[in-house]
């Protein structure tokens, strides 16, 4: 908890210490961090490899965008509604996808994300087709609040959402509910034999994961001011999965680090070279082969070794 407090305080001081353009990259990194952490609930705690988590991101972003443009509701209410919509849509998806595990689960989630992608082009009048929706505002309120309209303010909103979601997710995985998830991950047959309805646990986890992913998407819509079909595309799902694995699945903090790592690396490398995707793929393969525990797992091991040596 002390470490968490230090991170929160450092995070709160960041806007006053870095130039404004850097803050934009940081906000993007934190939003992706939240998105990666939401996927970690499935991947790291249930070993459910979702290859379609872009569905949660895109759903959150498009619902937030459409609500804010058409209904002109206050930003915070718009984001909350977008999360609600994502959760509602996630329930039937979770119900169907959890019928299978392993590769079939990955492909079913991918299928739903690609369905969403196809829908964007089918209902062009509503979603803008390949152009996406642009000009998403940040309407003030409720209670006349408008602090999040400025860049610094929006940073605090994103930071608050990320830290709050982290605390919530940590509480979930440390609760008795989380212990059952660990049981599913380690040995599902045994968990069933102990009398747990593992399917219900998996459905809940998938829905929670989509909910947090939807929050990340909604924050993205308010941040970028537009939502494009890219958000639903399978490459987005692939990239976020990479971030979870490189950061360290099953640690919550790791995926956030992984996302931050890749967003910054992309920002730096894409300025100097157009070989960025090549570097991205190569770094990722190196992690899978050499450090399957990810950045966070690697750091934890180093710390343990140094403690043992001391």
């Amino acid at each position, binding site marked *: 908890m002390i470490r968490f407090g230090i991170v929160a305080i450092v995070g709160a001081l960041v806007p006053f210490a870095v130039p404004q353009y850097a803050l934009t990259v940081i906000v993007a990194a934190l939003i992706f961090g939240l998105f990666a952490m939401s996927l970690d609930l499935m991947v790291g705690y249930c070993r459910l490899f979702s290859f379609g988590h872009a569905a949660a991101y895109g759903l959150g972003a498009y619902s937030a965008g459409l609500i804010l443009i058409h209904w002109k509701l206050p930003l915070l209410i718009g984001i909350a509604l977008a999360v609600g919509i994502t959760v509602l849509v996630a329930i039937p998806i979770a119900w169907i996808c959890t019928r299978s595990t392993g590769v079939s689960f990955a492909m079913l989630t991918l299928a*739903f994300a690609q369905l969403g992608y196809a829908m964007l082009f089918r209902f062009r009048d509503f979603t803008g087709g390949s152009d996406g929706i642009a000009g998403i505002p940040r309407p003030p309120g409720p209670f006349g609040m408008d602090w999040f309209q400025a860049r610094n303010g929006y940073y605090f909103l994103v930071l608050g959402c990320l830290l709050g979601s982290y605390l919530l997710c940590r509480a979930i995985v440390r609760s008795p509910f989380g212990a059952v998830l660990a049981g599913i991950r380690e040995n599902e047959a045994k968990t069933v034999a102990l009398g747990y309805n593992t399917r219900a646990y998996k459905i809940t986890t998938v829905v929670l994961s989509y909910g947090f992913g939807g929050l990340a998407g909604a924050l993205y819509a308010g941040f970028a001011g537009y939502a494009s079909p890219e958000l639903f595309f399978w490459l987005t799902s692939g990239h976020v999965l990479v971030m979870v694995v490189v950061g360290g699945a099953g640690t919550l903090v790791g995926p956030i680090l992984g996302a931050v790592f890749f967003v910054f690396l992309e920002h730096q490398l894409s300025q100097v070279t157009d070989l960025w*995707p090549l570097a991205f*793929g*190569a770094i990722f*393969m190196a992690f899978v082969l050499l450090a399957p525990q990810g950045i966070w797992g690697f750091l934890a091991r180093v710390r343990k070794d140094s403690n043992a040596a001391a």
Partner: protein
Amino acid sequence: MDFVSFALTQCLSALSQAAILFFVACGLTLIFGIMRVVNFAHGVIFMLGAYVGYTAARISGSFIAALIVAPIVVGIAGIAFERLLLRHIYGRREGGSDLLLTFGLAVVLSELIRLAWGAQPLSLPAPEPLLGALFILGQPFPVYRVFLIALGVVAGIGVWQFLERTRAGLLIRAVSQNPEMVHALGVDVGLVRSGVFGLGCAMAALGGVLAAPLLTAFLGMGTNIVIDAFVIVIIGGMGSFLGSVIGSVLVAFVQVIGTYYFAELALAFMYLLMLAVLIVRPGGLLGKEE
């Protein structure tokens, strides 16, 4: 245009599509069945086949040369990947490393292709004798697509007979059922795995060369087909050869009908088919439930 001839040409068109899908899906399902590896890079390997075929045809001036050179080159590249990188993740306790490693390979390989051949689509025309059209009940139909159907049937029967009738096929089926026992009987299981991976890659490359005259060789062709191929393999049942044949035909028909009647939702129909199959049989039509 009467309905019978229209339906017939649509069916033939779907069958020629199925032939190309089969070349990719068959390798994917064999690799999964024998190695338990989900090869996400299979689509990019298909794409590599098209590009290597383009270069081979440019140099030699012959489409036949492309059909021979591309599978060999890509098959060897596949074996090298299996030997150098992929085999390090066998036997990991936690699953999913295979999917992740091959996803990384897909990203790297498609970038390398972009660097080597550029971002422009490259056209690889079919050879002269296959360029024209046949008339089927008064409807024109490309000769090249008939050639694809024929080749697909030959390849399907060939692989089936190879798996059922030859000693190598016997070993492959044995390794898919119980690798430890086969190993204990003195067979080099690693060699069988490399061979199957190379064979799967070579088939995908052949599919790539065959698809190039229809689609041209372009950078997105790998991602489109790998999703189709996964859908096929899941519909048919992971690891089932016959399942990949049935799945290819089903998906090709759904794609052709979907594209004709519901242009933008054609994609959606393929997924609905997969959903329907998985709801009834979670392991796929001919697969075992996990």
